[in-house]
């Protein structure tokens, strides 16, 4: 107990990097964003190395508010990867559209800090702090492209609805506090036996409110309404960032909370999750079909993917949990890869944002088109890509726990998704070009981002063994919090 600084090393590194950029941004000439990219790279590499250093440490620290376990470890890797890839993919865009605004980098880092706090906190208040530290930079980021009306609209919409959702989350915490007299998850789990039957209602209501609050952040239907507008309006790199890390962070918090409350949550709660899961998948996939704007299409697709992760959440247990975090890793990689190619294509002022604008790109830009094709196939879950292995693991978890219908609905949904993912490929390869395209917004870091995501997508599709082992190892720490109970009580 006490203060173990090692386990929050990555958080500190990210926060310090953000601050360094904040200061150095003042002294740098505008448009020198290659320096900022370099600083970001160094910061993330330090954070990554600190994360790896903390791998073997499992400890509860800071009055039991922060836990260092493999779950936090795995999520921190996802966040570092997501942030690094976003910054690499964003470099040209930030230079061209945002005039090299250093605030972009600062906000991305602060949001990443918030995500890390969410994933490693074991106190509801700390999780809430993480959620807010993550969300507020995101509200700003959505509107950072000030000249664009839709970007400002996205920011306002996201802010109002997000603030509302935070209210739900806080109210949920209040109810839980009312029932157990604590906001610390570990302390709460040790008080189940004392609390008695009267608090069941309070617990269920509190958990439901928390589910709504976090469900908003990860875009679970029916709390997903903001996602399409915000994804479409926000600048492309911000959308890439928003669709990966924050989603994983939200699920991290959900997993932490649900695992603790599992003994008091009954079957009815599972069936509510079941319904939400089916609703999320189907809603996302069906509405994605009719989208013309690629960012909006990917917004609906991200809703659908949240639904797939929820299959694992419903299936529960270690296999469900490791399937979920593996899928979140896979989704982060593929989705940022897809957005990196979209940033390549999008042109000045986001002019080429419709899928139909991509007509003829297949043979005009062979490499970029093949990359986007592979990402689309991976999102659709075609074998030999990471997406397939991720879905396989999720369906395996569902069948393992006996959720046959959920698995069947899941595969039917993935069939629906093939339709709109393949439509992008159809447009690129099989339709004649309609507009003149000014050429690719090419930059070395963007190329690196595409290459990394491409290699990882194929590697996780063909030789995923080591990553699967990692996710299974993280899954083993699922019950760790209850072990810490005894340590906590002895305080």
């Amino acid at each position, binding site marked *: 107990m006490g203060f173990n600084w090692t386990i929050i090393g990555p958080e500190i590194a990210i926060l310090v990097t953000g601050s360094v950029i904040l200061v150095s941004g003042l002294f740098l000439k505008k448009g020198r964003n290659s320096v900022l990219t370099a600083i970001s790279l160094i910061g993330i590499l330090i954070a990554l190395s600190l994360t790896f250093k903390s791998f073997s440490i499992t400890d509860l620290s800071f009055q039991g508010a922060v836990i260092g376990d493999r779950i936090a470890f795995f999520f921190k890797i996802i966040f570092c990867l997501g942030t690094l890839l976003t910054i690499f993919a964003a470099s040209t865009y930030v230079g061209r559209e945002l005039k090299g605004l250093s605030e972009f980098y600062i906000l991305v880092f602060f949001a990443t800090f918030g995500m890390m706090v969410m994933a490693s906190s074991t106190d509801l208040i700390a999780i809430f702090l993480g959620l807010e530290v993550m969300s507020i930079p995101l509200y700003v980021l959505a509107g950072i492209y000030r000249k664009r009306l839709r970007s400002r609209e996205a920011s306002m919409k996201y802010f109002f609805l997000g603030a509302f959702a935070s209210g739900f989350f806080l109210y949920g915490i209040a109810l839980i506090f009312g029932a157990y007299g604590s906001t610390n998850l570990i302390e709460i789990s040790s008080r189940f036996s004392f609390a008695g039957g009267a608090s069941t209602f309070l617990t269920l209501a509190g958990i439901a409110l928390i589910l709504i609050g976090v469900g908003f952040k990860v875009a679970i239907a029916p709390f997903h309404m903001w996602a399409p507008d915000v994804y479409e309006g926000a600048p492309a790199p911000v959308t890439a960032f928003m669709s990966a890390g924050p989603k994983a962070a939200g699920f991290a918090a959900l997993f932490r909370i649900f695992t603790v409350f599992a003994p008091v949550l009954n079957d009815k709660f599972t069936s509510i999750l079941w319904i939400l899961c089916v609703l999320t998948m189907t809603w996302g996939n069906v509405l994605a079909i009719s989208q013309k704007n690629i960012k909006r299409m990917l917004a609906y697709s991200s809703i659908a993917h949240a639904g797939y992760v929820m299959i694992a959440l419903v299936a529960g247990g270690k296999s469900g949990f490791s399937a979920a975090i593996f899928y979140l890793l896979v989704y982060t990689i593929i989705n940022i890869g897809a957005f990196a190619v979209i940033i390549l294509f999008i042109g000045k002022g986001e002019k080429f944002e419709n899928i139909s604008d991509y007509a003829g790109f297949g043979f005009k830009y062979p490499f970029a088109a093949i990359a986007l094709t592979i990402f689309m196939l991976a999102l659709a879950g*075609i074998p030999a890509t990471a997406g397939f292995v991720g879905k396989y693991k999720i369906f395996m978890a569902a*069948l393992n726990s006996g959720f046959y219908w959920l698995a069947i609905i899941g595969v039917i949904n993935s*069939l629906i998704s093939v339709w709109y993912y393949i439509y992008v490929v159809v447009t690129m*390869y099989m339709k004649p070009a309609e507009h003149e395209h000014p050429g690719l917004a090419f930059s070395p870091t963007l190329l690196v981002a595409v290459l990394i995501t491409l290699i990882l997508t194929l590697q996780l599709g063909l030789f995923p063994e080591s990553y*699967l082992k990692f996710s299974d190892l993280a899954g083993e720490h699922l019950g760790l919090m209850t072990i810490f109970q005894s340590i906590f009580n002895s305080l």
Partner: protein
Amino acid sequence: MEWPVLTWIVFLPLLGCLVILLLNKTWHNAIRWTALITAFIDFILTIILFWKFNGSNTDMQFVVGPLPWIESFGVTFSLGVDGISILLVVLTPFLTAMAIASSWTSITEKVKGFMISMLLLQTGMLGVFVATDLFLFYVFWEVMLVPMYFMIGIWGGGRKIYAAVKFVLFTMFGSLLMLLAIIKLYVMTSPDPLLRTTDFMTILNMKITPDLQVWLFLAFALAFAIKVPLFPFHTWLPDAHVEAPTAGSVILAGILLKMGTYGFLRFCLPLFPDATLQFVPLISILSLIGITYGALIAMVQKDVKSLVAYSSVAHLGFVMLGMFALTAQGVTGSILQMINHGIATGALFFLVGVIYERRHTRLIADFGGIAHVMPLYATVFLIVTLASIGLPGTNGFVGEFLILLGTFKVNPVYAAIGTAGIVLAAVYMLWMVQRVFFGKCEKEENKKLLDMNWRETFIALPIVIMIFWIGIYPKTFIDKIEPSVNKVIETVKSKALVEDESDFQAYDSSREKALEKKKANK
């Protein structure tokens, strides 16, 4: 360790792809030759495989692995051939090489992408036939969709996008449910997650309760029935076949459809024997409907290519009918007919491509009296047509005869309806030949048509040889497949007899012990 010949056969085309990737996209001939030589070397390798294959051995031969691949999923990399797959393994590079040669002058744009798709397809198809791990099988099965989709969508004609997307969605629909069934089988292999496996041999030795078998059978059968295609899942086929480029149609009809029938024989029959026996009437009747319906629709087609496409529905109906007769002759005939249909229909699509390249039309009404200007072409076309309708002395006869013989033994009514289907086949094929080749050559455009050139003749020659070889001396091939066929039928009939609940338990405990031993050895 023995030289892993199967690994080489499967991945050699992939190697060819890499070579083509390095070539400049304007070097069309270099790209074509690389692709052709790769496919041809692969064909030579499969010929050697066929020669060394021991027909009397019913086990998997030339086994590769099981090598650990994805241990967390219990997935192994394991390949092998037996009598069921050996002929299909030889047929695949044969038809691929033929398809590559046939697109020498018809594909002049984006040659690089086309040849890469072709070789990727070859790897995928070969992988499907030799994989002995369900996960590996599924990966090959699905991956193969992608190059085929590009082939129809980019180089196809007319409603190519519609056809390509329809093809992908239909096939994916079936295979996704099969994926769930595979996962279910995997979960059932052991209660301990660490001991589970998707190895086919382990799953084959597993006893599954008849109730569950029905569900799993349906999940697998749907995937295969769409691919075959069995009536009423055939609607994607005419679109895909007609819109695909010649090479694509050759591969689609020649090999892709066989993946469905192969899947039934390899997985559905031995894995779910009780369900198989239960579904015999349903599948036989659907096959008979397919035979008759396909023939009747083919009869009224105005386009030669769609006529050939619908004839596939009828022919594959025969294959399914013979297989679900579950007699030695029926199943042997069914495998032989898969090969025959591959050769004959592949050849027909190729020949249609030959005339289309010259006239840019495939409508029967646009031709007539072609035999006068293209005698060689007409001769080859007639030979292939006769093989397709099963004239004695050609390969089609042997296959259809065995199928009908096998079916007659178990159900004379089915055999009678099937025979009527052969008559219908003769009607639509011969009528088409008559309208296209005979009579007076009246149209001006047709009078100047050139006969087959040396390249086309060279492609047609091996086909004609194979037609007569299988037709006159089928023993070469039947010897290799019959023992394995008997084994499959034996498995179905003996496994289905275990009905007593106590048998299951005794079996389970012995299997647990074996698995524990395996764990201890590790």
